[in-house]
């Protein structure tokens, strides 16, 4: 174990490669890779890694990158890839297939604005567009969390009670290209944490079985129901994977919902990714000044941890959901799911949505201050508020 100052991309590349290498005593590892800013360094890291039993296939598109990864996974390999933004959009058909095939593929998604207009900066709209697929989604705040969560994602995805692919997400540049102090696990510990992958439904070369062909409605329905049952098991299995992670690596990879100062908070900020780092400092200052403000960071988005979120906001009277994404015609995606989580449980709770940091805008302490001010002055929740932009200006057209 060593401490290094590395980027989020480096952390992701390290975790994916170490996980793949850990399966060398079983069926090995393979992946399809394709570059896109700002995740390119991840696949470059993987391409350079000297796998003992693995093959990295540099393909011609993201669509094929996931297809190669699917083929390897069906053959029982530990398989992974990484992408971002329009690359994820191009890959989407096969992302969906990996989920419905129940393949425990791990993908790192670097959250970048979907174009047009062309924009390489942070926005979570790319991975959130995949929200209705059978994939687990975990959002990270810094390099350490990216590394730990990516390793945990393999164990979680490969658990026989789950068998669903997982997506580890980080904000473009703010995490992907920013170096932070990170504890790097030894391969031997990764080997201990990730046992040989045993995919029960892998295709065997001597077995006459067809997968992915026609299924009548009732069969299809049963398969969907099994996915729902697996999704419902995720919160418990996550805690087991988290516990085992702490035992092996001596570090907590973090809970699905993470709180700061919520024990007595009447007003709570609900955030994801790097917004949490900034918001935590604002909350720390405000609490030192006696304000009853708290912070909730949503780490796991799929499945959405409704119960844990409700529990974290037990004392709140009003919450602000900060969304670095925009679902056209509605508002933020995290806001939608937050509202659904409280519906019928806390109808008294004021839930206000703030769209902030979209298209790579900075979410500064001042922006968070403005949000807290707006939240405290409200009589009721209203339409989502666009931060950092004056929507009354005619020049906006």
């Amino acid at each position: 174990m060593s401490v290094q100052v590395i980027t989020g991309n480096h952390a992701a590349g390290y975790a994916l490669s170490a996980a793949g290498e850990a399966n060398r005593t079983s069926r090995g590892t393979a992946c399809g890779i394709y570059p896109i800013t700002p995740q390119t360094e991840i696949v470059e890291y993987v391409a350079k890694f000297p796998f003992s039993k693995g093959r990295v296939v540099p393909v011609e598109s993201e669509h094929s990158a996931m297809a190669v990864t699917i083929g390897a996974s069906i053959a029982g390999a530990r398989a992974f890839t990484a992408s971002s933004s329009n690359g994820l959009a191009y890959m989407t058909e096969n992302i969906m297939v990996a989920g419905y095939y129940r393949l425990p593929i791990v993908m790192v998604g670097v959250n970048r604005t979907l174009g047009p207009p062309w924009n390489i900066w942070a926005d979570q709209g790319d991975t959130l567009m995949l929200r209705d697929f059978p994939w687990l989604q975990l959002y990270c705040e810094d390099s350490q969390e990216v590394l730990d969560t990516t390793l945990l994602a393999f164990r979680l995805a490969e658990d026989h009670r789950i068998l669903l692919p997982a997506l580890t997400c980080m904000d473009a540049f703010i995490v992907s290209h920013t170096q932070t102090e990170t504890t790097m696990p030894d391969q031997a510990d990764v080997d201990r944490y990730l046992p040989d992958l045993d995919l029960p439904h892998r295709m065997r070369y001597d077995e006459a079985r067809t997968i992915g062909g026609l299924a009548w409605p009732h069969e299809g329905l049963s398969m969907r129901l099994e996915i729902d049952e697996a999704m419902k098991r995720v919160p418990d299995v996550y805690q087991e994977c988290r516990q085992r992670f702490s035992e092996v690596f001596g570090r907590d990879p973090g809970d699905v919902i993470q709180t700061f100062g919520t024990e007595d908070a009447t007003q709570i900020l609900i955030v994801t990714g790097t917004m949490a780092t900034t918001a935590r400092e604002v909350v720390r200052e405000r609490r030192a000044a006696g304000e009853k403000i708290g912070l909730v960071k949503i780490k796991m988005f799929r499945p959405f941890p409704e119960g844990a979120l409700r529990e974290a906001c037990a004392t709140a009277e009003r919450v602000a959901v900060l969304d670095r994404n925009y679902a056209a015609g509605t508002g933020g995606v995290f806001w939608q799911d937050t509202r659904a989580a409280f519906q019928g449980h806390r109808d008294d709770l004021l839930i206000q949505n703030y769209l902030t940091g979209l298209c790579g805008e900075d979410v500064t302490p001042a922006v968070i201050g403005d949000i807290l001010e707006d939240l405290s002055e409200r009589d009721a929740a209203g339409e989502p508020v666009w931060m950092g932009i004056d929507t009354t200006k005619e020049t906006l057209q």
Partner: protein
Amino acid sequence: MNATAPLAHDDKCLLRPGNTNCGGCGMSVGLTMLGRALDKAEDSCSLVIPACCGIVTAGAYPTTSYGVPTIASTFASSPAVASGYASIRDLNNEPGQVICWAGDGGTYDIGLATLSAAAERNENIIYICYDNEIYGNTGGQRSSATPAGARTTTTPTGKVEGKKDIMSIMAAHAIPYAATLSMAHPEDFAEKLATALSMTGMRFLLIHSPCPTGWKSEPEDSIELVRIAVASGLFPVYEVFDGARYRISIKPDGTDPAEYFHRQRRFADDEIDLDETRRVCAERMRRLEVLARSFH
């Protein structure tokens, strides 16, 4: 091998009886031939099949008409899925071919970039296109493999453009083996399958595959139609090694192509320019003969 020997109807055969393929379907013949070639070579395979009639052939879950491991891929992805799957086979020293079995839509159109990339990487797979010159599974729309003059649901007055020359495209990748196969010539067909099975790296096989439903032809005419296509030079039967060494397998015998068009109601007799067709066929054969001479 006796190409006409009846198949043993056990569940180990590649295409099991009881599938729902149309009468006169060339794809069924192709699969049967492939199964026999594998048996003769004492080889086995896994199939990767994109969206096409070939995956419908499997029937409904949990039963299957395929007696081998079969993976359905997305329409454009069969060579990429096969690349990942074959990589793990090779890393684990497991036997058996990984064979993509795809229609012309998945080959000439939506999957062309994926196929080109797999060829460029010289993946250790066999890619077989059963070319029925139409999107058969969706009810008969034009593809870039549809020949000029053919009426499809999306070319109701006949296709204006000619057929894409996929063989030249694949040969240009300098893959170890590319060949065209006609089921009117089963010995040559079997020999080419045996050749492909004996090699490693990327192998591409193109089968002219009659489709009575899409061609609006009689099922019993299927083999006769592809025989005329070979004899008249409409479908040249040849093979290319390493993109360089050409060999013409069956020489056209001067048969008039008119009968080929006349027996398919997808063509309107008075709309086919037979003189132009004869000229194009002769020119193509001349070019192939030059290539075959240059490299032998």
